[in-house]
């Protein structure tokens, strides 16, 4: 019997493994709800207060409060597993599809509760569009990829209206000139960078107010990346853009504000210029200067 005990003990240890230390001698308790910098804005697009996200028993997001201003580009950065994507996906309820995922706190879009049970999630996602890490065009023609959203949302009554939306969206995504002569060919036949811009065109076809981007360039080469970044700058005139990125240079290039996440905490939010020259929090500094231990 005794010989069994060590095995059981080991299992118990694994289950009770403490959360990894925050590094730099900083404790979890020092970070919770203590975001430094400028997390709040006047008349924000999103007002997020004490947001917590649980995957089963695990608390993946730990009481984060943040405002996202209208027409700003805000970048979420942080090491893998810091919760930036999880937090992003709360904003248009993409986490709903994960059974064990629970979201707590107040999350408001233009003053209205995002998680109101009466809210139409399809309508929410039309207003808050999303572009994913890997380009994922539908196995349809280029035209139908873009026209799909407007069709199901009934945004166009006539073929000519739909044509207009498709052209405008493809132009908005900087893809029109490259594909205008082959709109009926499959979207999957485009290059990776073109596919990603097609997905952006698809996202903006339903006239969203916000575009969420989850590492939109991680599968693209530098030139395609530069095109998308250029596009982000143009889109920011009409949309609020929230981008999760692993590339700090990208965050520095495209965003107005940068938010640094660490182990489910929002450590620091500030103007991007400030974050990359004089970050306030030592953890932010460690991360952006490549010191992360």
């Amino acid at each position, binding site marked *: 019997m005794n010989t069994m005990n060590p095995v059981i003990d080991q299992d118990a240890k694994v289950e009770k493994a403490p959360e990894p230390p925050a590094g730099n001698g900083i404790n979890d308790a020092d970070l919770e709800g203590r975001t430094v910098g400028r997390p709040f804005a006047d008349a924000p697009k999103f007002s997020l207060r004490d947001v917590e996200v649980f995957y089963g028993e695990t608390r993946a997001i730990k009481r984060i409060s943040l405002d996202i201003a209208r027409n700003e580009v805000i970048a979420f950065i942080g090491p893998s597993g810091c919760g930036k994507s999880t937090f992003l996906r709360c904003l248009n309820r993409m986490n709903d599809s994960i059974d064990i995922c629970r979201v707590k706190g107040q999350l408001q879009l233009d003053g209205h509760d995002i998680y109101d049970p009466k809210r139409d999630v399809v309508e929410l996602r039309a207003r808050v569009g999303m572009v994913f890490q890997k380009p994922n065009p539908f196995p349809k023609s280029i035209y139908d990829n873009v026209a799909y959203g407007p069709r199901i949302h009934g945004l166009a009554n006539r073929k000519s209206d739909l044509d207009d939306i498709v052209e405008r969206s493809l132009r908005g995504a900087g893809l029109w000139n490259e594909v205008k002569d082959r709109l009926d060919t499959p979207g999957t036949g485009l290059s990776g960078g073109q596919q990603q811009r097609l997905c952006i065109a698809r996202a903006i076809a339903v006239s969203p107010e916000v575009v969420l981007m989850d590492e939109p360039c991680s599968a693209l080469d530098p030139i395609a990346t530069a095109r998308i970044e250029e596009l982000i700058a143009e889109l920011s005139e009409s949309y609020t853009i929230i981008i999760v990125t692993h590339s*700090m*240079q990208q965050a*520095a290039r495209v965003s107005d504000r940068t938010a640094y996440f660490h182990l489910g905490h929002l450590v620091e939010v500030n103007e991007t210029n400030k974050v*990359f*020259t*004089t*970050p306030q929090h030592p953890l932010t*500094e460690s991360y*952006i*200067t*490549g*010191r*992360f*231990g």
Partner: protein
Amino acid sequence: MKKDEDVYGDHISHQFNEDLAGLKEDFLRMGGMVEQQVVDAIDALIDGDGHRADEIRGRDKQVDRLELEIDEEATRIIARRQPAARDLRLVLSVIKMVADLERIGDEAKKIAKFALSLSEEGKAPRGYVETRHIGNHVSQMLRDSLDAFARLDSEQALRIMKEDKRVDEEYQAATRTLVTFMMEDPRNITRCMSVMWVLRALERVGDHACNIAEHVIFMAKGEDVRHTPMEEAEKVVGR
């Protein structure tokens, strides 16, 4: 504050640590070199040692070469590492501070030139006490500013900035003395003017040391205290 070697030396990339350490080391080497040039130039002047003055002028080429090397090193780090935050501030500051060091080197060369001509013409009758005094003062400032850089010590940098006011006062007092002397006997004018130029060069060395100190505060605190009142700089350092 963390120890100096921790501040720039704990990147995941070992090579990056070495690049930054190399940059710092070369900057300090150049700093040591120009500091020696200033000290030697003052000695050569006061001892009337033309041979030594000649040597100093020759060594300025080494200083210039080091400036180019450090600039190249810094450019390479920016291109390859895209430094951010305090690493970026270090690289930017070094780029600007080498220009100050190079100018200090030029001032030392200038002093050596006057040392040479004065040694040929015979000693200037007055102003050597002041030269020695201001010379010691500014070389100490330069030494302290390099030390503040090495230790990223913003408090010491602030003290250097304050010292610069005193150098300016000493310079003005010395100038008045020399002017009085020139008025007393016009035959002294040429030689006294040479000493005046030397004092002027030393005063400039103090200014450059002060610039380095300002950059040290920028490196440590992330705020630019150039062209700001002293009280502002005190506030920044106190944070």
